[in-house]
């Protein structure tokens, strides 16, 4: 089984639309939406949930006001300034500021503090018209999206092995932070979907740096390539110097947006369009060398 993560650095490059297109081309593949902060792939794949699991999020401290003597020791020690005096007297923890380190719980001289995992996060195993899909839903303002990404990936891998799947295709998160890292450690290939804008380029460079640190083979797709042909050229040149294979370029076309509005991948929506052809070619470029190996 080959695990591929699709990333973009910058958001809004069209990563999920392209992932959905790959999904409708891939056979014997398991899919995972590991953009757990803002998951969108399910809007096209329309998963039917088969299994729901709770993911234990970060802990949040709670003060038992019956025991608390208002000594204020924890306020001084909390590095995140998450503990405050209430106007009506007594102390309270601001759940949005609490990082769940349990320092206060451990040092409170009166043992008035306890902590509980947040139970706002869930992950799912579902059926879709293209195959099994794993996805997640995070509560608002939650932490630890990196850990949730790792959990979804681990279970997706298990499912893929069980089914003897050829591929596991992950729709990854934006950025270069902990969740991006969690989405690429140990994967076989990364596909970068970028767009020719200064910010798209800037973020792509940061992401490439990160992927190269992990020595993962990297492919690139330039989406909306005709928005700025000058930057497209610069990107192509940059990819050559970095030894990154360019899978292809896709011109801007409202059909990509219209496909999403119709909850379809572009392959389903306009199967004979130029864009559909291009994406088919790209998917073949990624998968053919792998099939030959087998």
């Amino acid at each position, binding site marked *: 089984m080959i695990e591929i993560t699709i990333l*973009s*650095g*910058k*958001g*809004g*490059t069209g990563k*999920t639309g392209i992932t959905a297109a790959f999904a409708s081309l891939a056979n014997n593949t398991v899919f995972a939406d590991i953009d757990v*902060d*803002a998951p*969108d792939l399910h*809007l096209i794949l329309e998963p039917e949930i088969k299994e729901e699991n709770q993911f234990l999020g*970060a*802990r949040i401290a709670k003060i038992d006001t019956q025991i608390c003597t208002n000594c204020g020791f924890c306020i001084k*020690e909390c*590095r*995140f300034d998450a503990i405050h005096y209430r106007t009506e007297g007594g102390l309270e923890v601001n759940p*949005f500021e609490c*990082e*769940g*380190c*349990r*320092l206060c719980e*451990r*040092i409170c001289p009166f043992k008035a503090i306890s902590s509980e995992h947040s139970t706002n996060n869930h992950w799912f195993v579902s059926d879709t018209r293209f195959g099994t899909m794993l996805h997640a839903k*995070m509560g*608002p*303002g*939650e*932490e630890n*999206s*990196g850990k949730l990404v790792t959990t979804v990936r681990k279970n997706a891998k298990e499912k893929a092995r069980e089914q003897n799947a050829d591929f596991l295709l992950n729709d990854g998160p*934006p*950025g*270069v*932070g*902990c969740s991006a*890292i969690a989405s690429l450690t140990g994967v076989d290939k990364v596909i970068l979907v970028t*767009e*020719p*804008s*200064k*910010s*798209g380029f*800037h*973020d792509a460079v*940061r992401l490439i*740096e*990160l992927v190269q*640190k992990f020595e993962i083979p990297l492919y690139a797709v330039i989406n909306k390539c005709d*928005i*700025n042909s*000058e*930057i497209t050229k610069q990107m192509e040149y940059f990819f050559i110097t970095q030894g990154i294979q360019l899978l292809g370029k896709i011109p*801007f076309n*409202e059909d990509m*947006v*219209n496909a*999403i*509005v119709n*909850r379809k991948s572009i392959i389903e929506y306009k199967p004979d369009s130029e864009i559909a052809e291009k994406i088919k070619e790209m998917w073949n470029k990624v998968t053919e060398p792998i099939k030959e190996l087998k």
Partner: protein
Amino acid sequence: MSYKIAICSGKGGTGKTTVAVNLFSTIQTKWTKNVQLVDCDVEEPNDLLFFKDAKIINRSIVNQSVPVIDESQCTFCRKCEEYCEFNAISIIPSVKYASVDPNMCHSCGACLHACKFGAIQEHQHPIGELTNYSRGNQTDILEGSLKIGSPMQTKIIKDLKANASEESDILIYDAPPGTSCPVVETVSAADFVILVTEPTPFGLYDLRLTVNLMKEMQKDFGIVVNKAGLGDREVYAYLKEEEIELLAEIPFNREYAGQYAQGKLLSDIPPLIEQEYMKLAIYLKNRMNHD
């Protein structure tokens, strides 16, 4: 005290940066010079790409305190490892190995309380930088930038916010995408939040998540629909149903998208787009006087 406006979007790439940069420029040229743009998208700060004339006037390193274990004092009891909720510490007694991974450490200080042998001390570890830029004589753009792989987004955002001038009439925070901790940190001090979305199913889904977060945080907010004309009308139905205020609608304009790509957001703005930013600025001015 300055009036603080945060610009958010659940989904990346809806045009949050475009709105932040344009709003900043509209306010600066038409309303007050005393405004600062604070780029809180510390994983991928991009605001500066649109201001070629900005000069660096100050740059400082942001450090995090990371514990270092002195192996000559350490008894390898593993108490600190047990205390660390972030799995940053590895102690292997059999080979007398003790180490802390700065990329996992959240600088909470719990391990310092754990160690009874005085083996742990904190050292400063760089996690990113803050830069002040100016296009005249005073700082008007501030940027935070996180070292790749560091989990300390919120720390940088906190320091960055502290670095902005409270003397400003207005501060504009360009928030990171998503709905997790770094967004909460950015929005926490804001007086008003602008949520930028696009009229597609993706945009709407992520908007709902962000609206929930705003409600939970009890923030006042309104919506800007970017790329209007593309996609569908569902977002408008949602806003009506939820009685959420639509502050402005920026029409999709292919040429302008090309200009954006080039980093030229602030010249040759199509009149229809300029008008929407004026509308937004006037709304904020009224709101600020009212608040």
